[in-house]
């Protein structure tokens, strides 16, 4: 497991966490290169299905992050997002999807250091947990490979 480099996707809102991650850069704070950000206008835009898609395409971990409560650029998007996360997390738990692999956080545009911490801690945690084998078994690439080998 030593060479395992986890693949982690971060879904973040444009106004707080994306800007916070920009600040991490401006402050030259270092963090692991495993996390790649996909920008959304607001956490309210983040569809639960996109999280499923990330796992089934081989993500070992996911970060979802946006503005702190009351700080939403659109005033209430993050509140709606939080409700959905509460419910979806419940559902994931119930169906045996490892919610330890999804980190939800509030990172403001001023919290550059927090973003570095969030990334580093998540990478360390997922590295320890290892690849998401359960999901990978049914992930796209695996299925494709099986199909290919079946044809051969």
């Amino acid at each position, binding site marked *: 497991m030593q060479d395992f480099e986890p693949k982690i996707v971060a879904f973040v809102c444009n106004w707080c966490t994306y800007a916070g991650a920009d600040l991490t850069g401006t402050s030259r704070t270092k963090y692991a290169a495993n996390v790649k950000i996909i920008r959304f206008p607001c956490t309210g835009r983040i569809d639960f299905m996109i999280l499923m898609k990330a796992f089934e395409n081989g993500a070992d971990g996911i970060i979802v992050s946006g503005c702190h409560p009351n700080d939403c650029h659109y005033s209430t998007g993050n509140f709606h997002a939080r409700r959905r996360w509460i419910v979806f997390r419940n559902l994931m738990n119930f169906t045996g999807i490892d*919610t330890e692999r999804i980190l939800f956080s509030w990172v403001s545009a001023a919290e550059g250091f927090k973003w570095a911490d969030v990334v580093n801690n998540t990478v360390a945690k997922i590295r320890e947990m290892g690849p998401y084998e359960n999901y990978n078994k049914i992930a796209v690439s695996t299925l494709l490979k099986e199909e290919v080998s079946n044809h051969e």
Partner: protein
Amino acid sequence: MNELINKVTKLLNDKTIDAFIGYGQGSTDRVRAIFARTVEQASKLIYTPACTFNLSGYLLKHEVKHLGKLGILANVAALRSIMQLASEFQIKDGEVYILFVNDDASLTEFSDFQSIEAFLEKANIDITPDEKARIEKIEAMSVSERWEFWNKEFEKCIKCYACRAACPMCYCHRCTTDVNQPQWIPVASHERGNLDYHLMRAMHLAGRCINCGECANACPMDIPLNLLTYQLIDPIKTGFGATAGMKADAVYALSTFKPDDKENFII
């Protein structure tokens, strides 16, 4: 039973309704839905202990809708479906003629949504102890056991979409399953696509499911998929104070919020 037939006959005769959705004898000993448009058809209505399934799913079906003004024999689940559909602007007050058979076999007719709401306040809307026990059993498992459990169940799914067809809340003309740009849900029935489909369905029913259980009843592969939505009922009730299908003007739990909604996982 005669009271029901007489009532429906009268409703059809005086043109209060054009068609009545009720129960009738199916093949073998099964009960099925019938759509009585004539007095003759109305005479075939039955009401037996086997008549338990939720007929409200038919209300929005294209073929049924076009029969004209509808009447329906509703049980508690159907009444809740109607309330939920009303809150989603799918049924208007007074649009459907609603009959209900009481414990003493007498008939209650609901003249408006308000009377349904009052009735539901006192009705038993809980999931059965057996269903509760099954949920608790799954919850007691470890994460990987739960994963294995559901993986085994979803493996059986043949993507026939009977659950979707049976669900009174699945009235969308184009389900996300049918969206192909992008192809959110893979078409083939393999584990991945099946998981996607069932999670998507459960999420879309979260806060809307009125626990009638028709999805699981319809499933030819006996997947207990009602448990997926049932287990979300309690957290939504305790967390957000919302129960689906109780009020015609309810605000959907997932399209509102409280600034102090409680969670313990966001850092």
